């Protein structure tokens, strides 16, 4: 198997509410390829289709037409539960909003992706604790998430994305709600992941991120199409 085939999109269209008055054409004939270990930035103004493309790549949604291949497996036609399985094994997500469960505590939030997995409670806990340590959150493990500061919430969200030890990290506008200091922290974490050989896909229009040295490639998007690729 070629290295090239980690994630591949071929002529992907995505249309929301097809056949209805509020039909939206989000992506048109998008093709791209992402190699393992690469850091790719999707750049473009809001509404250019970045998020739609991320959800297709991340197996959150299925394309209207075209193919999406994850490790040479066509995921476009898989039933939802298989998509979920692939998503759980392969991807970690950092959302624009942190998407934490507000009233639950830190430990629970971090362990969220592990609940439906087949491992013991102790093992789940162990893994959550390890990742808590790594992000310096051990002291706050029983704190409710909505009582944490923005930066801490950000770290909880990242820790949750990494707990399954995913190959690919997908981040959608990760710096949108962060100040400069926290954005730098995030960039630090992302470049560390890059050094560990993880694939990172970021959608952003924040110059601080896409001009950052760890970025391998910038894909420029406009109106649901890929306008150009800038290898940096």
């Amino acid at each position, binding site marked *: 198997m070629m290295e090239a085939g980690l994630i591949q999109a071929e002529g992907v269209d995505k249309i929301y*509410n*097809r056949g209805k008055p509020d039909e939206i054409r989000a992506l048109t004939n998008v093709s791209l390829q992402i190699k393992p270990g690469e850091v790719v930035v999707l750049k473009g103004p809001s509404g250019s289709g970045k998020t739609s493309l991320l959800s297709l790549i991340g197996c959150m949604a*299925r*394309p*209207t*037409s075209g193919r999406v291949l994850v490790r040479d497996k066509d995921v*476009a*036609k*898989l*039933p*939802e*539960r*298989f998509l979920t399985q692939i998503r759980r094994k392969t991807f970690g997500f950092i959302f624009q909003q942190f998407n934490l469960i507000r009233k639950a505590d830190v430990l629970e939030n971090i362990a969220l992706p592990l609940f439906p997995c087949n491992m013991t409670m102790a093992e789940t806990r162990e893994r959550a604790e390890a990742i808590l340590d790594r992000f310096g959150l051990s002291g706050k493990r029983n704190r409710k998430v909505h009582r944490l500061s923005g930066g801490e919430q950000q770290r909880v969200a990242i820790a949750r994305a990494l707990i399954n030890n995913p190959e690919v990290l997908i981040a959608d506008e990760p710096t949108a709600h962060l100040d400069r200091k926290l954005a730098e922290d995030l960039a630090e974490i992302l470049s560390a992941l890059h050094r560990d050989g993880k694939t990172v896909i970021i959608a952003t229009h924040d110059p601080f991120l896409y001009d950052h040295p760890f970025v391998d490639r910038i894909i420029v998007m406009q109106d649901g199409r890929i306008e150009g690729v800038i290898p940096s």
Partner: protein
Amino acid sequence: MILHPGILALIVGSVLTFAMLLYAAVTGLGILMRWDLQSSSEEQLLMERKTSLISTLINYAFGFQILSLLLFLYTADQLHPQFVGAMCATGTLNANPAGWNVLFLKIILFFASAFWIAVNTLDQRAEDFPLIRPKYTALLFLTPLVGLDLYFQLRYFTGLHPEVITSCCGALFSERGFAIASGLAGLPPRPMMILFYGVLTTNLGITLLCRKTSSGAVRFLLASISVVTFFVGIASIVSFVSIYIYELPSHHCPFDILQQGYAFIGYPIYLTLFGGVFFGTLPGLFYPMKKIATLKELIERSEQRWILLSALLIGSFTALCSWPVVFGHFTLQGYL
């Protein structure tokens, strides 16, 4: 109609189950008509998601079916003092012809829903919904059965007039009777025992053979002998197992063994028989589906488990039935 709490529970539960299955069937009809795995329309996506709802609904319905089979027998048993001459559940069932229909339907539903769930489980583990059409076609047949069950239950319970004299189970299961059930008791114990052990040994033998070969014929044979085992098993319980348990030469009632007085021995006996027969028929039933590429491996993996389970359950059934025959104080000598 007798306003009995058990009857209320049965009817409430059956109405709810029927409503659930009706919903499932309507959805299933939509799936049968518009299913297109190649399409990525939102409608198709919704249908795919609905399949998981239907699985849940049927799991619940099946769970209730098992409980309602027990509850039905229990209630029939509790009601027997209301009927002149009725000495156990048999008498209550005789009080209205619909009673036996309900019992048979509930047994059929037990197996039918178990099969549906087996098919569904397998189908859900394959990536391309290979069995979606047969599955939902079967659902269209399962739903009317549940409706029929509800109908017969209502007919049975509304038609129960406590004044009517029923033939008591002594009369029904004695040699003089003419119903099917009395025919079972009429089967003489000695030949029945020979038949019973013969069939069970054959069954276990074929099961072992199944573990060795992957031939389809052996699997069909196992399925057929399992069905035979079911009827021979029930007939033997009526014919001789019951009298060894009750230690009375004329008491053939197949329901009394479910009672506390006999240490609930009926539950393991029926459970092992039903379970063993069910798992015994699965390999034969699924054999034709091995043609489907995505299912072949799944079936082959599950098959070994089914065969093992069937052997274990049938083995336990034999042991449970033989226990009172071999170790009980009661002997049939002099009655034969």
